[in-house]
């Protein structure tokens, strides 16, 4: 499987939080190659079911498929577009960024601000505010109004850069890389036996309220949840303990939100199967859907696999492709073996 190419395909389409319908159909096509049934629920979650042999026993694997982006707020008399953010975006990275506005058709634009030579001494020291930025589409007001409306969403332009040593950089790798890991897992599961039904769920609106994970885990009511997301990759000026290392495999999260028994099992399997892994200590909220799945209904034992990602929430999110592959492998091995563990245990979920 060409995972780099899969990542490229998955990130070149856009699904900003709340506007995932743009790509839900495309994602369901990937699931259809492997799953027994595929549906898009009424929130937009894309759910692929791979049936096991045990009836009524379920594992859910979630990876959110929304991405951060921008939203058209107003259009001025010269056709320049003002915007607001969807999800956490540092306005500083928006200067001179390239974007695509999803109006009646896809419209390219660049983000401008007050030119540097016109800034006074005070302004130079300050950072740019979101409300002082604008998008220039190169079109006049009439043309802009013909194609673009207030409320249209905006994504970064994909850069799809293949770097050295299996690194790949573009927008929206948070969290399409985890969707890619699910596809790797599905490919692996062709050759693995699994007792439980495995629901692969690409969820919506993680970047805003974890909405997709809340609704999907309630509706599916699984015995175990495997959440797949990204964590911060190493950078020189970030304390080592706040980040994981790209290329060293999935970061298995440990901490109060994550189920100890299943997490230990994950580590054990990684060791046994010779899959690279590292430990990511999450003392609190994890910043992922594990926060939501853990407290769904009567509570779901949850584990979290994180793919290390550098420069998160920018147009140049960067990861090592081998980490995606190893994450997929670990999901598959865990999902196929954990069913044995759970068999007969009534406390796994609400009945």
């Amino acid at each position: 499987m060409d995972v780099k190419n899969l990542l490229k395909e998955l990130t070149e389409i856009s699904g900003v939080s709340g506007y995932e319908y743009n790509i839900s159909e495309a994602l369901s096509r990937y699931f259809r190659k492997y799953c027994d049934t595929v549906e898009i629920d009424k929130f937009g979650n894309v759910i692929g079911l791979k049936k096991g042999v045990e009836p009524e026993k379920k594992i859910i694997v979630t990876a959110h498929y929304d991405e951060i982006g921008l939203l058209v707020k107003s259009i001025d008399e010269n056709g320049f577009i003002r915007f607001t953010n969807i999800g956490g975006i540092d306005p500083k990275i928006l200067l001179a960024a390239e974007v695509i506005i999803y109006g009646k058709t896809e419209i390219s634009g660049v983000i401008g601000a007050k030119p540097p030579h016109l800034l006074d001494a005070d302004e130079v020291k300050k950072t740019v505010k979101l409300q002082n930025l604008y998008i220039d589409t190169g079109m006049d007001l009439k043309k802009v109004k013909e194609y673009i409306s207030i409320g249209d969403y905006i994504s970064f332009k994909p850069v799809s850069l293949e770097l050295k040593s299996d690194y790949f950089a573009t927008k929206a790798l948070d969290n399409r890389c985890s969707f890619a890991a699910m596809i790797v897992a599905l490919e692996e599961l062709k050759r693995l036996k699994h007792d439980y039904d495995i629901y692969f769920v690409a969820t919506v609106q993680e970047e805003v309220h974890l909405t997709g994970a809340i609704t999907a885990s309630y509706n599916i009511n699984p015995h175990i949840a495997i959440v797949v997301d990204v964590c911060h990759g190493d950078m020189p000026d970030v304390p080592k303990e706040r980040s994981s290392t790209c290329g060293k495999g999935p970061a298995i999260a440990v901490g109060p939100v994550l189920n100890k028994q299943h997490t230990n099992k994950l580590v054990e399997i990684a060791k046994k199967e010779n899959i690279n892994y590292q430990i990511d200590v999450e003392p609190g909220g994890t910043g992922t859907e594990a926060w939501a799945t853990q407290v769904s209904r009567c509570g779901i034992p949850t584990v979290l696999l994180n793919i290390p990602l550098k420069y998160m929430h920018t147009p140049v999110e960067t990861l090592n492709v081998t980490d995606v592959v190893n994450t997929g492998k670990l999901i598959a091995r865990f999902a196929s073996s954990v069913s044995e563990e759970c068999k007969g245990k009534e406390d796994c979920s609400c009945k």
Partner: protein
Amino acid sequence: MQIIKDLVELNGVSGSEEQVANYIKQKISDYTDEVYTDALGNLIAFKKGKSSNVNIMLSAHMDEVGFIVTGYTDTGLIKFRNVGGVDERILPGKTVLVGDNKIPGVISAKAIHLQERDEFSSNWKMKNLFIDIGSEKKDEAEKLAPLGEYICFNSSYQELGTECVKAKALDDRVGCAILVEALKGTYEFNLYACFTVQEELGLRGAEVAAFRVKPDIGIVFEGTTCSDVPETEKHQHSTRLGKGAVLTVIDRTAYSDRILVNYIYNLAKAKNIPVQFKETATGGNDAGKIQRTGKGVKVAVISVPCRYIHSPVSLMSKKDYESSKNLALLILENLSSNLDNMDKILKGVEVNV
């Protein structure tokens, strides 16, 4: 627009203009009497006049702003400095191409989640940024991108809307393209088309090119700032996108020759070529050096307005490029067929067109 696309997609940071020079050389070889490259790398094309010994120098710079490799981190990341003026605030999250092998890289941008409060409210400094080419080791990075390797913005030519172009290096590949077009004509006077180097470092190439050519008249073709955008006052709008070729009266480096500029302006008006004046005195270009060469040279500057200049996403109007190109050809044709007009300009006498 093909020539603009070809030119902006070549990399030529000041000090590494060879690719651009080679491309231009091959484009103009059929139209020139002599082409040579001087000690600094300026490409000078000469076209002998049919009757007049007046030397007209057209000048456009081949170089663009960019970066240079200055060091590495132990984890294989590249440290860099700018070559020419770049607003360092725009750097985080941009993509670049390193060296002649165009190795792709990204400029680091610390995730919003990891920034301390004071970091979030301060602008990034170049010294704290680095370029990530995916290398994990210092020696590997060093081998792939040796010290002193040039680094370019990675930005493709793209047409925006109905009449705009987005690209890097519009400043000054637009000027280069106009000079190539100008060389296709035949003229009564001697024409020197000088494709200069290192303008962005301080007009280095033009200084020696003008000394060699000894022009009587120098006309510089440029991409210039265009600040007709939100968050600015109207009086700060240096030029206006879509309103035509720009004539400079004065900037930080040169005074244009009043009679020459009036002549160009009136000629444009007479032939309905959209033309505007640059309404701020900021910036500067090769005209500054050409003007003060030898016994002094009468200069004028014709520019294409470029929003977001010196960034990977400069924006120009195709109409303004056409206006500037047509104006260039019109001037040369008019001077060639009315040598007395040229005579008047050289003597400082107002020309009626």
